[in-house]
């Protein structure tokens, strides 16, 4: 039983009973959560930016940094695990500072990019906890497939 920490621009999948996959403090980043009940596996991607065209080199070194390279990379991992059943998707994060003109709303741009790429795989989120001005930490239990969010001063809740 171990906790697998996913850093900014990283992703992880696990079907080891007892494992928890966790990513800390999603600000404007988006946590893309994959649940594969048939093979009792879960996956988590921590996307920082919407589009890899700003730095192709970085995208090849660390595909999880961008929505358009991170989602295909983790889906490839999931396919390698032999998933032949339904994938349940959940999304968390994409927060923003209070910004009336949305100039700095990278969170929103991340959310839109993630949805667009998921759509290409005919995937859509079943539940979401997105936006607002709060930082979220995500934990996923392999045993139960339960997803928990937490934020400083706000405790923990299930997604």
């Amino acid at each position: 039983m171990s906790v697998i920490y996913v850093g900014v621009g990283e992703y992880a999948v696990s079907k080891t009973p007892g494992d928890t996959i966790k990513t800390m403090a999603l600000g404007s980043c988006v946590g893309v959560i994959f649940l594969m009940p048939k093979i009792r596996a879960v996956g988590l991607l921590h996307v920082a930016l919407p589009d890899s065209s700003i730095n192709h080199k970085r995208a090849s070194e660390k595909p999880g940094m961008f929505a358009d390279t991170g989602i295909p990379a983790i889906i490839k991992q999931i396919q390698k695990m032999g998933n032949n059943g339904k994938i349940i998707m959940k999304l968390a994060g994409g927060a923003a500072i209070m910004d009336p003109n949305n100039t700095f709303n990278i969170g929103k741009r991340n959310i839109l990019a993630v949805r667009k790429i998921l759509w290409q795989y005919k995937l859509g989120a079943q539940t979401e906890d997105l936006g607002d001005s709060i930082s979220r930490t995500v934990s996923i239990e392999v045993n139960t497939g339960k997803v928990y969010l937490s934020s400083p001063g706000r405790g923990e809740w299930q997604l």
Partner: protein
Amino acid sequence: MAVITTNLQDEALTETIANRVSNIPLLSHVASQLLAILGGSDHSMQDVVKIVETDISLTAQVLRVANSAAFYRGQDVTTVSNAILNLGEKMVTGVALGSCASRVFNSPLEGYESPSGELWNHSLRTAIASREIAAVTAVSVSTDIAFTAGLLHDIGKSIISEFLIDTADEMLSKCDNGLHDDFLAAEKEQIGTDHAMIGYKLACHWNLPEPISAVILNHHHPNDAEEEYKELVYIVHIGDILAMMGGTGTGIDTLFYKIDERYEEYISMQSDSIPQILLTVQEEFERTKTAVFSE
């Protein structure tokens, strides 16, 4: 009568908090000297070398960081001048501040529900973001002072944190219900002052250069700064926001601040360039954090 009692309590609390400031140890002579020359307009690298070399433990620490995996360039660094060439002057100031003000930077912020080390991480990330903004936008502010001001902008939180313990539920509920414009206003209502004002008092106690004090006092409301410091204050205002967006805040207050759109009058920063800046900040933050703390 009740109102008078409350006012007296508020005044007593404000005085208690102000007393905490005067109990914070002064900055080391070396750190003060480094800040003073970076705050001034003209200095040479040799000035920085001379100051660092007067302090044995700082010299050792600067050499350690310069030889760490993140900054190593194939040859051992054995002199302070080569170390500064490798690291940059601002990193040297960062190392000096981090070591001599560790009580300020490394204590947990219990009132913000933020563990030990988060204030330093947030400060370092804000420093890197501010330096990056100063580097890529057409501003007259030097990258050195942007970095140092970013590093120091939130020092007030280390003092007011203990007065905010057990207030998170009440403060967040008011924030969520639109009763406060931002978290600074929430602090002000809760304890009669806020981290910007108390940080400014600490800046005065430490005798920090005026531009840096102006940043500490005005980083959430940059338009209130004196005109001559506004460019720098807006840079750190945005740097702070980029650090929080990147997931490095200081607990319950993270992201609950407003952007002042008038930054456009001082910093030419297109919306398209923000992802690139965030990416650079992320990479530099990971590199620097590891170098300063891992070995």
